[in-house]
């Protein structure tokens, strides 16, 4: 049986603009089971106070690249939940 530490991925979830305002925070550390996805990290954030204001399928990124909810996470990944973009 592998050591418990190998069963977990520690990631950071960043929140921006309206999402950061809704939850009152810009960054959350989350520990997820091995093989967890962006969707799993999102599900966790949506359980936080104000998290229900984040839509079920927001724009997401992993390590500075746009990524779908099915994207598998690795130790140390930086996940970003992106409100509707309004640059340009």
């Amino acid at each position, binding site marked *: 049986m592998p050591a418990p530490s190998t069963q977990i991925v520690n990631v950071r979830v*960043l929140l921006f603009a*309206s999402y950061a305002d809704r939850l009152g925070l810009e960054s959350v550390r989350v520990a997820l089971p091995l093989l967890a996805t962006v969707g799993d990290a999102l599900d966790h954030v949506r359980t936080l106070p104000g998290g229900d204001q984040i839509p079920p399928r927001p724009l997401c*990124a992993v390590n*500075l690249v746009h990524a779908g909810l099915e994207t598998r996470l690795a130790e140390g990944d930086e996940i970003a939940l992106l409100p*509707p*973009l*309004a*640059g340009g």
Partner: protein
Amino acid sequence: MGHLTAAPIDPAVLTARIESPAHGAIASFVGQVRNHHGGRAVGRLEYSAYGPMAEAECQRIVREAEAEWPVRVALEHRVGGLEIGDIAVAIAVSAPHRDEAFAACRFVIEAVKRRVPIWKKEHYLDGAVAWVDPTGSPLDEVPAS
């Protein structure tokens, strides 16, 4: 890097960066802060960004354009507080001929709007403040108190 800037943008500086004696055509686009949005008078606004990703995405967009067409591309997006008439984004594209210059310029502004993680908070003259959602109405409006 350097696609994001907190300082005023000068389109002439971008143009100078991409000029070439072999390139006869330069197409440019500048986005400025308008004095209205959705029928409401805007006083000023703030752009915030996911800085490292916005820089990376801008760089990817420029590289994609330069791979697709025989062009040189300069791109800058302002962040922080802006007043009416301030330049929010500027793009300059040089190419041997105008078809390529226009096509690449259009590609870049569309990609910036669709892909670069930047958000806009509008401060209306009536005192209200809102994050802008181009896919719908303003989000999370805080009414004038």
